[in-house]
C-alpha cells in the first residue's frame, strides 16, 4: 500500500522536476534501471513469500544500483564496457524473470 503510494509519488516527482541527467551519469542510467527493476521484483516476491524485509529491500536496491554502476564504470575504463553491461543485464534479467515467474505462481497458482 504505502509502497505503491511511494512509487507513484516518485513517478510524479520525476515528472514534475524533470531533472537533467549529467553527461557523466548517462552511461549508468540503463544499468541502474535494470538493477532497480531487479530489486523491485525481488521485494515483491519476498513479500508474497512472506519474508519481506524493509532493510534488505532498501540495501539491496541501493547496492545493486551502485555495483552495477561500478561494473560499467570499470568496464568503460578497461575498454570492455559494453560486454560488462551485457553481462550485468543478462544476470539481472535472469533474476527478474525468475522472480516474475515466482510472483506469477503466487498470484495465479499456475
Amino acid at each position, binding site marked *: 500500500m504505502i509502497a505503491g503510494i511511494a512509487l507513484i509519488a516518485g513517478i510524479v516527482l520525476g515528472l514534475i522536476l524533470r531533472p537533467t541527467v549529467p553527461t557523466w551519469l548517462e552511461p549508468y542510467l540503463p544499468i541502474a534501471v535494470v538493477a532497480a527493476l531487479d530489486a523491485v521484483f525481488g521485494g515483491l516476491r519476498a513479500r508474497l513469500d512472506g519474508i519481506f524485509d524493509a532493510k534488505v529491500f532498501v540495501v539491496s536496491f541501493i547496492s545493486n544500483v551502485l555495483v552495477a554502476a561500478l561494473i560499467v564504470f570499470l568496464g568503460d575504463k578497461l575498454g570492455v564496457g559494453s560486454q560488462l553491461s551485457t553481462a550485468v543485464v543478462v544476470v539481472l534479467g535472469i533474476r527478474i524473470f525468475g*522472480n516474475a515467474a515466482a510472483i506469477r505462481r503466487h498470484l495465479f497458482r499456475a
Partner: protein
Amino acid sequence: MTGPDKPDDRALASARLLIDLVTNTLDPGYAEAAARREAGAPRRRYDRPAVAVGCLLVGFLLVLAYVHTHRGAPEAAKVHDSLVSRVRAAETGGNSLAARVRDLERQLAAAQDAALPKSGAIARDLDLAQLQAGQLAVSGPGITVTLREPAAPTASPDPGRGGTTAIGDTNILTDRDVRSVVNELWHDGAEAISVNDVRLTPTSAIRFAGEAVLVDFQPITSPYRIRALGDADNLSTNFAESSVASRYQTLVGVDGIGFGFTESGNLKLPGSGPVKPRYASVPPTKKRGNR
C-alpha cells in the same frame, strides 16, 4: 546438488554457478533476515519509511530514465533536421550564387564583346587565355573515362560509428584514383578535362572529405566520369597503354570496379567560374604589354 556421486567439484563449479543463478533468483538476504527475525517479532520503527523511500527512489529512477530517453530522441532528431535544413539552405544558396555568377559572366562577356574589337589579336589572345584557364565552355573530340564503385560495396566494418571512417575504408575508389586518371589524361595530351561536369582549372584540386571526393570543393560520387578533350585517337591509345589504365583493368577483375573509356567525336565541357589569383600578381615594375 549434494548427491553421493559428486564427480569433480571444481569441474562443476561454473555449472553450479549458472544453476544457482537460475534457480535462486531471490536475494538470499530476505530468507536470512526472516530467519533472524523469527516469527511474530514486532515491526521495526523504520520499516515503513524505508520501504517508502526505496519505492520513491525506484519510481524516480524509472521516470528519470524514461524522461531522459524520450527527451534525448527528439533532441537528436531536431539536431538532425536542423542540420539537414541548413545543408539544403546552403545548397540553394550556392546554386543561386552559381546562377548569379553565370549571369554576371554573360554580362561580362557582352561588355567585353562590346568593348573589344570582334576579331583581331586581342580577342584571340583573350579567348585562348580563357580557354586555357578553363573558364569557357568548350567542345570537341575527346574520350570519356568512367570509374565506378562495385555495385554492392563491402559492408562498412563498424556500422555503429558513422563519420569516423576514412574514405579508403569503405570505398575502393578514392580521390587518388580520380587524380591519377586526370594526371594521366593531361600527360596523354588532353587540352581540357572535366570530372563529373566540374571543369578543371589550373588551380583545381581533387581531394576527399569523409566519404566524398571533392573536386574544387564540390562533392562528387561514383560513377566518376572524366571527360578529356584532345586528339581522341591519340588520347585513347596513350591512355590504353598507360600504367594507370592497366592498374584499373586489374582492379576490374580483383575488386569488381567499373572501368572503361570511349572515344567520342563531340564532347561538351562546361566552363568554370573565373579564378582570381589571391597571391600571384604581375610585378608592378613590369608593364603588362612587354612580355
